């Protein structure tokens, strides 16, 4: 079966598996992994994951230098975890297949 998550969604949920994260921190981690996305594009992708029931988002209010800011936080849900595991299994099977093919190619050469 094909994976239910795209590469980017897989990476997002992988980051959320260990702990809940603020959108800003999650974006910073993605940037570290080479993902360049604008703020609105990132939050729209997260809204899509929320709609599919993979993650849950909520606001937390913070005061930074006297200014009130509402920061969006995310946590992975059970269906998100399941989708992530399914996607990981898919990639592992694909890696196993490609390893067999590579071994045969090398053996033939």
């Amino acid at each position, binding site marked *: 079966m094909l994976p239910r998550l795209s590469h980017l969604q897989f990476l997002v949920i992988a980051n959320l598996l260990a702990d809940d994260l603020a959108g800003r921190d999650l974006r910073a981690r993605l940037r570290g992994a080479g993902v360049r996305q604008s*703020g609105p594009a990132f939050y729209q992708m997260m809204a899509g994951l929320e709609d599919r029931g993979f993650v849950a988002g909520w606001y937390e209010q913070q005061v930074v230098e006297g200014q009130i*800011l*509402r920061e969006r936080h995310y946590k992975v849900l059970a269906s998100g975890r399941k989708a992530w595991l399914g996607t990981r299994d898919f990639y592992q099977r694909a890696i196993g297949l490609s390893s067999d093919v590579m071994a045969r190619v090398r053996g033939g050469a």
Partner: protein
Amino acid sequence: MARSDRALRAFARLLPREFRERVFDPAFSDLRREEIEGGAARKTRQLRRTLLVLESLRLVVLFALWRHRRPTRLASVLILILGIAAVVVQRIRYEGPRRHNPVPERAAPAVPPRGTLPPGAAAEACCQLEQTRIANGVPASTPAGDGLRP
């Protein structure tokens, strides 16, 4: 910066509520936090805010047309209007040349005087005349009235 904040908040009020709460507000909040913590130059701030608005506009168009993996009501109405407009345009294009340049009716061949043609040629001329009449929508001739039949 307070004026720019007010302008952005006014812009946010124009956006659909769901989009504003889940996309624009967190992105704007992140931007403000970066500005507070980083203290970027005024021009950089303005540029970032302009980019936020432009990016939000780009995304909100898609959001208005496609949501929850299906077209929205607005998208359905737009598709319907475009379909009707395409049919109307095709109809106008089809009707235009016919109205301004109507197809001229073909003139019926002159009937030769009785007894001037040999029998074979007379029958051929009769057939040709009938075909022309049919093509022009003229009622069929009576056997005795066409002046060609023996």
